[in-house]
């Protein structure tokens, strides 16, 4: 699949690998585990590309994305709706998070990757370790490209893939900026339309 990625899309993925290493703590080989939010950062970092331009239109430039995903919000683990459901049955997840952060620091959750998650290396020697969710986003980006009858996977398809498979913390983050799949799709198509 990776051979279908444009140079810029590949660069965005490598940027995600780098961000994962910086933000989540590296393993013995110096790699972090790539999650969907790192892919979003990678897309935003490829500034000249359609994906980043569309994101910037929602007020989400690289710096904004980095800020939003750097502070490990408990909501990276659970969405606002999941927290509310827990509260309804008497579990204060906020308190759990507070104590964990007190004991282990606020990077604790970064270090606790989903345990059952089979990790796979992608994108060759310079690539990194990808969790299931990030891998599914990449597969989804291929599907998004095919659906649009595009031969290559660009950063815009990764962005659409991220929106098609929203995983915490992205739904809350994207909703705050009013980013929806439909809107992004329209703006991507508009951006790709050859100027008349």
């Amino acid at each position: 699949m990776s051979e279908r990625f444009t140079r810029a899309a590949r660069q965005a993925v490598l940027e995600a690998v780098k961000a994962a290493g910086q933000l989540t703590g590296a393993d013995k080989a110096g790699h972090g585990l790539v999650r969907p939010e790192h892919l979003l950062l990678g897309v935003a970092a490829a500034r000249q590309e359609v994906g980043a331009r569309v994101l910037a239109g929602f007020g989400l430039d690289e710096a904004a994305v980095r800020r939003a995903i750097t502070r490990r919000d408990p909501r990276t683990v659970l969405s606002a709706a999941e927290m509310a459901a827990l509260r309804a049955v008497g579990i204060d997840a906020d308190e759990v998070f507070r104590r964990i952060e007190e004991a282990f620091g606020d990077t604790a959750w970064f270090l606790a990757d989903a345990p059952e998650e089979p990790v796979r290396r992608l994108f060759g020697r310079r690539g990194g370790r990808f969790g299931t969710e990030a891998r599914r986003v990449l597969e989804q980006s291929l599907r998004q490209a095919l659906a649009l009858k595009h031969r290559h996977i660009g950063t815009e398809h990764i962005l659409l893939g991220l929106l098609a498979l929203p995983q915490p913390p992205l739904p809350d983050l994207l909703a705050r900026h009013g980013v929806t799949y439909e809107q992004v799709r329209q703006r991507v198509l508009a951006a790709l339309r050859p100027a008349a």
Partner: protein
Amino acid sequence: MEPDQTLTAAADPADPETGLRAVAALRKLVDQLEALQVRNARQRGWSWQAIADALGVTRQAVHQKHAHRLGG
């Protein structure tokens, strides 16, 4: 509309939607807590057997689930 529905649903613990979502969320939280605690135990030099005993599972189960992530 939708956020309102979520909040209304969340307020009623007898609503199956809320209850089931809470169970799913709890499971997710447990997975994360387990990953975190196992990691911490390993960093403090706990053996896989000791971790398995504390979790009440077999050494093999805990190793299979976490070793790939933590190494060893």
